[in-house]
């Protein structure tokens, strides 16, 4: 660990500003024994150090001067300029040394030369509970080799200035030069299937259920909404699968021969078969439940079934963050006579109201 590189297992609470939301989340999960693929975070200090010795801040100030966010052509052109400035930027020498060393360490740990990694932006604002701002910054998958990793880091930094992210900051009144980014470098999983899970029922906020969306291949198809995923509801306490909706998943994202993720149409048989076994469904639900217990509030997780691992531990947690929709409401019996201290009023009200014990 250095001021530029924080391994997931070295993460401590005080480092959140350094590693960003994603980096902190992966660090916490690793510390809590939740099964995330191994990796490290390149800190915001690394970002700052590199930026300080470049002209990027001046370029940003110049290009964003009097930016009209309703003028899409203007936004596109100016943001492109900023990203170009990032891509030409030299990474500070001590940062680059640490980054390359850390990547080599990851290769050594995984026993693979040029281990494929995911390089993800981990902005300090992206994953905060009050701003559900997922997907605004970039993720680069299947990056192999030191040089490619360095390049991907640069691109992640540049992704702070995508059109959308830039407009968002203008709208929210954030200062562009204060926005920082850390970058997560993590061993890739090769997913058989992947998806998301909520530790509550997103339809009604029922916290006694886990809801899983799952599709073949990479979870991006689920997150982006490009496929209608299989959907499962699991009773969190009794750990029983209460509902299964298997959809026709016409495509998957899979790894091409040249390490890129590509769309692939699925043949009918595979498209309509369930993307998870019952054992996997239960294991994902348990994982989601463990994540919720660890964080102390409802979670929204990303998970995958890793083809490289054995049946017993092939469920990998990719990300866990607080669920933002229902957590603001309180699902409660408040206001109904059922929650009042007067138990007879409650019993009378129960008897007077139609029962729906089925469904």
């Amino acid at each position, binding site marked *: 660990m250095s001021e530029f590189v924080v391994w997931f297992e070295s993460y401590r609470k005080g480092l959140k500003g350094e590693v960003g939301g994603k980096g902190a989340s992966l660090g916490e999960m690793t510390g809590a024994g939740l099964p995330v693929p191994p990796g490290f975070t390149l800190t915001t200090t690394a970002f700052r150090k590199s930026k300080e010795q470049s002209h990027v801040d001046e370029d940003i100030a110049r290009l964003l001067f009097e930016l009209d966010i309703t003028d899409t052509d203007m936004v596109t052109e100016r943001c492109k300029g900023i990203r170009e400035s990032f891509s030409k930027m030299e990474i500070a020498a001590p940062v680059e040394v640490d980054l390359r060393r850390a990547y080599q360490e990851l290769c050594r740990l995984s026993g693979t030369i040029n281990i494929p990694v995911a390089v993800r932006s981990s902005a300090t604002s992206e994953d905060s509970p009050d701003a559900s701002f997922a997907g605004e910054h970039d993720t680069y998958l299947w990056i192999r080799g030191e040089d490619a990793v360095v390049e991907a880091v640069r691109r992640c930094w540049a992704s702070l200035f995508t059109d959308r992210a830039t407009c968002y900051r203008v709208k929210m009144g954030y200062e562009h030069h204060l926005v920082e980014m850390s970058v997560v470098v993590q061993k890739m999983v090769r997913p058989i299937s992947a998806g998301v899970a909520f530790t509550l029922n997103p339809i009604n906020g*029922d*916290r006694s259920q886990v809801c899983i969306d799952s599709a073949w291949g990479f979870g991006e198809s689920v997150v982006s909404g490009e496929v209608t995923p299989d959907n499962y509801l699991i009773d969190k306490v009794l750990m029983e699968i*209460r509902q299964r909706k298997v959809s026709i998943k016409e495509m998957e994202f899979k790894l091409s021969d040249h390490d890129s993720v590509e769309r692939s149409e699925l043949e009918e048989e595979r498209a309509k078969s369930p993307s998870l076994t019952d054992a996997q469904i239960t294991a994902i639900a348990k994982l989601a439940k463990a994540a919720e217990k660890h964080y102390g509030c409802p979670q929204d997780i990303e998970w995958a079934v890793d083809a490289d691992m054995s049946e017993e531990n092939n469920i990998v947690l990719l990300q866990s963050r607080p669920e933002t929709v229902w957590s603001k409401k309180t699902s409660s019996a408040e206001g109904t006579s059922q*929650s009042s201290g007067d138990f007879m009023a*409650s*019993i*009378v009200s129960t008897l007077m109201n139609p029962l729906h*014990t*089925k*469904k």
Partner: protein
Amino acid sequence: MADRFPSPFDIETPEGAEGWEEMYVYSSLFSEHRRKSEDTTFWFQDGVHWPNVLTPWDATFLEYALASLSQYNSRHLQVPPADGIAFRILNGYCYLSPVAADPSKIEERVANFTDRAGHYFMNWDDLYSNWMVKIRDLIGELEAVQFTALPEIEDADLVVKSGAGVGSGYQMQENYHRIVSLGLKLWNYHFEFLNLGYAAYLDFFMFCKTIFPGISDQAIAKMVAGVDVDLFRPDDELKRLARKALDSGVAEAFSAGDVDATCEILKSSADGQEWIASFEESAEPWFNFSTGSGFYHRDKIWIENIEVPFEFIRNYIENLKEGKDLNRPVEAIRAERDRVVNEYAELISTDEDREAFQGKLGLARTVFPYVENHNFYVEHWAHSVIWRKMRELGAIMVDQGFWEKPDDIFYLKRVEVEEMLWDYFVSWATPEAPAGPGYWPPIIADRRRKCSALANWKPVPALGAPPEVITEPFTVMLWGITSDSVNSWLGGGEQLEGELRGMAASPGLVEGPARVILSPEDIGQMQEGEILVAPLTAPSWAPIFGRIQATVTDSGGMMSHAAIVCREYGLPAVTGTGFATAKIETGQRIRVDGTNGVVTILD
């Protein structure tokens, strides 16, 4: 989809059963006088308690039970939305119809109910321990009733010189009156607590469903269910006796072939005699246990048919020899219950709701032992005594030439037994030949014929006009009648070919060969790994639950005894399917999804 069920007035009488109406009291029949309302009311067949044809005397408990239930709802406690449950007998089968309270009286009823039911809830422990005293006293009084043939001459000291002023003839009439009036009292006691128990349970149930809309019925049941329940005690006693037989080296006696041979061997050794003494100790009261619902004189009672408990004990001995652990995992059940409660409590968002949850759970657990335990005391123990006493009376009348078999007495209506005893008394007093020996045999023969003819009729699940929505809480809880089941009976709903839907009474998913059991006599046929398909199950079938994979019944709700026992034994169960015994054949492979209440025929 049909919009209504057949009118009770359009149901045909099965061939050979013409005139069956005369077997029952007029008030229990559909009649022209009440036709208008009867025809537009919704009636469902109660297969939970009365799956078979009622003989005339057996209708007694139906009448006592429903009248007692009704009076508590309508007149005692004033349950706000629900008056009683009307009952009728049609083609020998029982049909019920929940009666809603007059909406204009609701306000007044709420006040009364709050006061009256509130008193019970506030003083539950005291009132319930008093109930246990009352019910044991009542059973004691029943046991004390002795029927004996009338003497040649009365005892000089006991009757004549004692100044009692009344004789054996009077006493015999009085004894019968005592049996029937204690029977009615028994059913009053039965419903003194039952609906209140359900109400508190329902309140917790609805609260859980508000906080956790997707919570399963079983999870709620699991949180409330007791661990040491009297209903499981008979089975526990069998296991204890099996262990004792092995420990004291007398287990071989159970391979002797039949009960008599087994008893011979047991009596021949000191250890065997000690085992018999131990059996007798368990038998009173725990083997006053019916193989059926307890509502039919034909249901075998363990204590009177010791081949039944002996066979179970023999099986348990075999299991023990194979090294099986017969113990119910009481500690594990308790720990699991605590885990479930704690996890749900932790998932509640506000302290206020958590407090309400704990309060309601507390009340539900206070009242629930009654719901679980009363069945043994009333339907099993007390009913066993009543059947026994009636049979004793029947045997006396056999000796007097009134009929052929002791059980013939159950082909008389309740009031006819009184007429018959009057005949016996008068003819003894006069003395002259009684008229009964000429009068009863043809009537009994005719009624036996009618009952056999009626037994071949498959009762339609419902009659009359379906309600828009089933809301009566007890109908749902106990009988498992919901708007969905009504729809599926009408031929609507989502029912697929080869699929039956019912109540998700006990969780789990299994596949296996079905065995359809229509009579308690046949439960011994169940083989290891089979799935039991029956009109209903009785708690006394528990000893075979170790052998089978799952249970499917035609009738019954979440709180039916079958459901309670299946949950206790961890067997998947779907209850209230309506037609399982008609649609499934022995040997067919079926899938039972007790978590979702679906049974699928796979063959």
